[in-house]
């Protein structure tokens, strides 16, 4: 049983859960994710392992409420147990010493970015992080990222915190200022797409971590397929990180909408039911 031992809201829509999972805490590496089900009727949803405590046997998950499953997850309380939790899944990030790393995180994408930033820093790299969100209260994990970065730049769309502007503006500033050896971008697909376009212009090798739709997470269904360098890959077993300059982001964006009507309907029904109960 995977009991929730800690819960904290970073903002109205972003929740952190610390969950008991001793085997996964031990086996996981930066870049890995898990798949969980909240209940017997639940969907299998993928979430990145933001951090882990091997001694306590716990892993930390950070989820943004976007639909039925993440809403249900955010409603779980300390002491409750997840119905299922499986992992660690996906290829681990290949971390080595390369020099200076530019780490770009958008919205809840900062959660999966955190263990990678930590890994790069520990490997002896200079790490510059750019955190971006629509507004101040959507900036998460800033302190944790600061702990493992040489410099942190915060960007908000509305200027309510840090600098006003998009992640790409912050990134370009850095790129113009000093030599960047590698870039990693994690966030909404559209943010990764534009970050990739930017770094391509400057010829900076870039990795992006994709949040495709998944079912099993073990290579069995092909729901998570993406085109990388003209070839079809499965995000769950071949990724989730890929060479961002090779990813067909437009196809990826289209595929993320593959179940949008069903999801929207389910979400409306779910919220209606909640309102009726309230």
């Amino acid at each position: 049983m995977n009991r929730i031992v800690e819960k904290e809201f970073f903002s109205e829509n972003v929740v952190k859960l610390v969950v008991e999972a001793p085997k996964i805490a031990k086996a996981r590496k930066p870049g890995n994710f898990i798949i969980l089900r909240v209940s017997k009727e639940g969907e299998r949803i993928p979430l990145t392992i933001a951090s882990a405590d091997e001694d306590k046997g716990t892993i930390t998950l950070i989820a943004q409420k976007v639909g039925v499953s993440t809403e249900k997850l955010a409603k779980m309380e300390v002491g409750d147990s997840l119905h299922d939790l499986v992992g660690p899944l996906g290829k681990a990030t290949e971390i080595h010493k390369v020099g200076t790393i530019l780490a770009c995180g958008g919205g809840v994408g900062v959660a999966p970015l955190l263990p990678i930033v930590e890994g790069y820093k520990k490997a002896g790299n200079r790490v510059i992080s750019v955190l971006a969100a629509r507004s101040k209260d959507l900036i998460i994990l800033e302190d944790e990222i600061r702990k493992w970065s040489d410099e942190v730049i915060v960007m908000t769309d509305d200027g309510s915190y840090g600098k006003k502007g998009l992640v790409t503006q912050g990134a370009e500033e850095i790129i113009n200022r000093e030599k960047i050896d590698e870039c990693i971008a994690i966030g909404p697909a559209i943010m990764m797409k534009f970050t990739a376009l930017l770094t391509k212009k400057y010829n900076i090798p870039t990795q992006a971590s994709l949040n495709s739709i998944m079912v099993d997470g073990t290579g069995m269904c092909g729901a998570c397929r993406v085109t990388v360098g003209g070839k079809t890959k499965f995000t769950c077993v071949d990724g989730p990180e890929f060479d961002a300059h090779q990813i067909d982001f437009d196809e990826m964006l289209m595929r993320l909408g593959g179940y949008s009507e069903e999801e929207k309907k389910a979400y409306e029904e779910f919220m209606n039911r909640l309102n009726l109960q309230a």
Partner: protein
Amino acid sequence: MTTLAEYLKERRDQEWRAELRKKLKGKERTNIPRVKMPEVDPNERVKFQNVEVNLGLSIEQAQREASRCMDCVNPTCIEGCPVQINIPEFVKNIERGEYGQAASNLKLTSALPAVCGRVCPQEKQCEEQCFYTLKLKKEPVAIGYLERFAADWERESGSVSVPECATKNGIKVAAIGSGPSSLSFAGDMIKLGYDVTVFEALHEIGGVLKYGIPEFRLPNATVDEELENLKQMGVKFETNFIVGRTASFDDLEKEGYKGFFVGSGAGLPRFMNIPGENYNGILSSNEYLTRVNLMGAADDKFDTPVLRGKNVAVIGGGNTAMDSVRTAKRLGAERSIIVYRRSRVEMPARVEEVKHAEEEGIEFMNLANPVEYFADENGRVNRMRVQYMELGEPDASGRRRPVPIEGSEKDIDVDLVIVAVGVSPNPLIPACLPDLKVSRWGTIEVGDNMQSSIPVIFAGGDIVRGGATVILAMGDGRNAAQSMHEYLSK
């Protein structure tokens, strides 16, 4: 050691069987027409995903069908069964009304008779080799139906016998994956006294039996009851556990596991790599069937969504294709079409499934293959271009190779496409064991005793054979159990 032939003769010489043979004259037996399986009406059954099509034989039907069997001196039917079930023995037990005995006969060789009776391709196995088929050119004894009857009778009678287990020897062994190969391995090892744990990556036990084969063909409850049997015998199950990820082989060896059976299946879907195949609304049969069968997507109570189509095309001609196309019909498709590149006779699906599909109004577009997909402005597939084929020379499989007819392309409207053109071996285990010998196709190489190039690792089922059948997987599991027992007893 007695040979199989000697054993069979000894069984055949039992007094009751000799008596029973005298009860009816040969002609009287061969004049009985083959039983018809009672089925739910096609118009009714297409409304439900979880209503089993075949209702099962009544006691009268089963006894009458059993009396067709000639109790042959040379029962060729057994040669057609991959696990050599003593067919005349169990059939004759049904004829004389000893249904529990019949079930016990089956369980000597098959861990899941209620499953095999339902899903074995009997027409290519036991029934193909039946005296009726071979010599009389008549319809064979309905061995599959009778097998199902005996297994169901035992379950429904509530007197399921839990087979006796040897004294515990305390030796820990692991089965990886919970498909039929692992389950039959686990059943045999627990009987031999081992401490058996089955590890499964998904949240349900059963492998393809749960996530693949739909309820209208194999109810999950039937599978669960057979699993309950194994649990009672002491087999432990760990779901949500991916060997090689959640824990490595080394970790498990440190925990004291002395032997491993890999039954990780051939779960990876193949696509055709044709233009437009990644549009929304084009999915693998694995994804489609998993959403519906494992995740309950057809039921509003469950959160997992499934796409419903008006015009659904399913590419392929195997059981997976048949299961997908019939599922689509049940989820409300107006047109549900099989698109298969060879002709009807080459379809690898079970004959009964093709017949059922036809009754349910499934359309068959044979000798046709998709070459490109088109989509609307949201990226949802709306059209498929197919090319027609003709049959050329036989290929390696002995079937005539389909050859495209130039200029024969035609477009058809579709809003959901299920690709069911085959699966590849699951690469997870080979990927984490560099010393493990695998073939060019990614299947694990094993000797006749199912032992791999790493002595403590045995393997069987689809990970060894590529896509095969439930009964072959079960046979491998049994064979591996026997060999591992010998290996660990040295």
